[in-house]
């Protein structure tokens, strides 16, 4: 299995507060890994760290390998070469993510100008091709527009076109459909899956929505309080969730789609911990129906289940792995 992106022992601090705790992830070529989590889970910090785009006040530790090349140690010109060439980045809010005073065609073209040494005319032509690739009709006309003249869905397509311009092996997308309407989200989900298969791009897709995971992911990693609590193939995670938190998220989704109208919704008690909460033991134990005294004192390490390889395997960090699968349903 060739890896587009591999992250190992990744930790991120903002001042004294630690947002990410030794996270490990692997995105195979041509596959989508969905990283799901709530506010403060550290999912966006993982995305930014993997793209080496953390703000200056943040500090990171750990290894990031892009298509086998170590990116975490690079700086300056070497890092610039990898950005765009090896890693594309898509933000949540494309209106803010695009330069408001530059035509969208130019914003794509500059990528070719720098990485491919093309002149203005050639790079403009390549930009139009990039716009066409994300299924925008009349790409040449759209290239001449400014971001505010495009709809939300079109803007996100342009962001994707920028990220994919140089056909990088990996694209990191930070909640790319969260700000969009349901119908536009559906269009983008479809587009990304098609392009991923077409170009063999590996995608790290950050989201808080299990429905989006169900639609787009080949692999899932569930984050809670800066840690990955479950990691595995999407289908097997959905089939046999091992971690109580994953189970709760899936039960919420199922409840929305299939629960009886009028009944109370399935709810998880409590709040996700904030960054400055001191955590002892398993971070989920205060909200977990299965928690025992062990959970309150000792942090569980990731254990492999379902064998070493194949689509039925995965990693889970829970003391009660395999205790009872249907405890919460």
């Amino acid at each position: 299995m060739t890896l587009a992106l591999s992250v190992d022992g990744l930790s991120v601090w903002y001042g004294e507060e630690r947002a990410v705790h030794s996270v490990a992830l692997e995105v195979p070529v041509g596959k989508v890994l969905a990283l799901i989590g709530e506010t403060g889970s550290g999912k966006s910090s993982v995305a930014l760290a993997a793209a080496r785009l953390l703000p200056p006040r943040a500090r990171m530790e750990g290894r990031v390998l892009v298509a086998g090349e170590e990116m975490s140690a690079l700086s300056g010109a070497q890092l610039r070469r990898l950005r765009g060439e090896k890693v594309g980045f898509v933000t949540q809010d494309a209106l803010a993510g695009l330069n408001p005073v530059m035509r969208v065609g130019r914003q794509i073209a500059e990528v070719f100008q720098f990485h491919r040494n093309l002149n203005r005319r050639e790079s403009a032509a390549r930009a139009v091709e990039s716009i066409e690739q994300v299924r925008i009709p009349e790409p040449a006309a759209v290239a001449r527009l400014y971001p505010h003249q495009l709809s939300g869905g079109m803007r996100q397509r342009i962001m994707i076109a920028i990220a994919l311009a140089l056909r990088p092996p990996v694209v990191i997308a930070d909640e790319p459909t969260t700000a969009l309407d349901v119908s536009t989200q559906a269009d983008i989900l479809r587009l990304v899956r098609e392009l991923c298969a077409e170009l063999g791009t590996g995608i790290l897709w950050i989201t808080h929505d299990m429905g989006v995971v169900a639609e787009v992911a080949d692999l899932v990693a569930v984050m809670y309080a800066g840690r990955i609590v479950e990691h595995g193939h999407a289908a097997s995670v959905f089939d046999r969730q091992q971690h109580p938190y994953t189970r709760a998220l899936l039960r919420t989704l199922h409840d929305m789609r299939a629960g009886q109208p009028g009944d109370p919704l399935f709810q998880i008690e409590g709040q996700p911990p904030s960054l400055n909460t001191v955590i002892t033991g398993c971070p989920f134990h205060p909200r977990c129906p299965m928690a025992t005294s062990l959970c309150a004192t000792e942090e569980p390490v990731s254990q492999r289940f379902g064998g070493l390889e194949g689509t039925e395997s995965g990693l889970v960090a829970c003391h009660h792995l395999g205790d009872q699968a249907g405890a919460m349903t």
Partner: protein
Amino acid sequence: MSPDDAVLSFENVTKRFGQRVAVDAVDFALTRGRTLGLVGESGSGKTTCIRLALGLERATSGTVFFRGVRLGRSRRSLRPVRKQLGFVFQDPYDSLDPRMTLERIVGEPLKIHGVRRSERSERVRAALSDVGLPDAPLDSYPARFSGGGRQRIAIARALVMQPSALLCDEPTASLDVSVQAQIVNLLLSLKQARGLSMIFVSHDLGLVRRIADDIVVMYGGRVVEAGSAAGIYERPRHPYTAALLAAVPGEHPRRRRITSARRAIGEASGSPAVDSEPPAADVTGCVFAARCPRADRSCRTTRPALELLPDGRKVACFFPVGEEGTSDAASGPADGGEVVPAVPVGPLSAHMQGAAGVSGGAAVTSGVDVSLD
């Protein structure tokens, strides 16, 4: 339902902002004791409707009635209505003044409506306790609370006057998934305990399905479909509603719903400024015509009225879904010509049925019939 049952009703209400029509000749009513889900994407006019109901905007034409009384224009005439109407907005970080204590935030409506100071503290205390914050210090500030806690405070403020109706504008949209259910359940139990009537604005179709009795679907400032929640989810009649439901993500990676290369609704090809955003000015025909796979010439020239179908549903469409064949020709305009088959039909029905298998015949998915054959 008799008109006496209407708590809040919109009659032919239009709101313009300059050239733009935000709400266009809208008719709907909130029935006593029920929850009305107001559904639509950005720019559909749903939030403007809430602002009109609260008297925060004035209708350009048409009338909003509250318990049979016309919503007046003056502040004074709005006061008794506001007493009866609680409201909760989307962003609990935005809607609570960070410099005000809980007592002032929750007690503000009491003060406005002239409740004595001595009585206020007690009622604030009671309201906070009703929303699950019995121990919150009255002199604390919103900053102490997380998103869910803040939204509870907002709900306490909305209910402190003991209103008969509650208007909620996406009250859980900015909350975490694991907190969202807590707030919704709180609203549901309060509604039940007090016999509240409620309008729940949302773009989350899954959530609306779970809590609404009736649904109004808006697009481009107009009501395109209205009816019972169960009925609409089971059998959407407007092509927009059908496409919207088909765009809701599924439940399992093995049973994906958004699969084919076809578009759920279809971004208007060639005109880059629009996909789900509404038309900028008046549209002579149907607002959805530009994106509708079923539209023909008549849809672009004649505006379909919101008509009552035999099954009690109201639909503004010449070619409602699931009514192909003879009735179409009859209900369509004279030059209607041939009926254009719906593009999303095939995959849509397939997905809906697929999902039905998972959910075990839940209302959302059972018996969806949008196919032509």
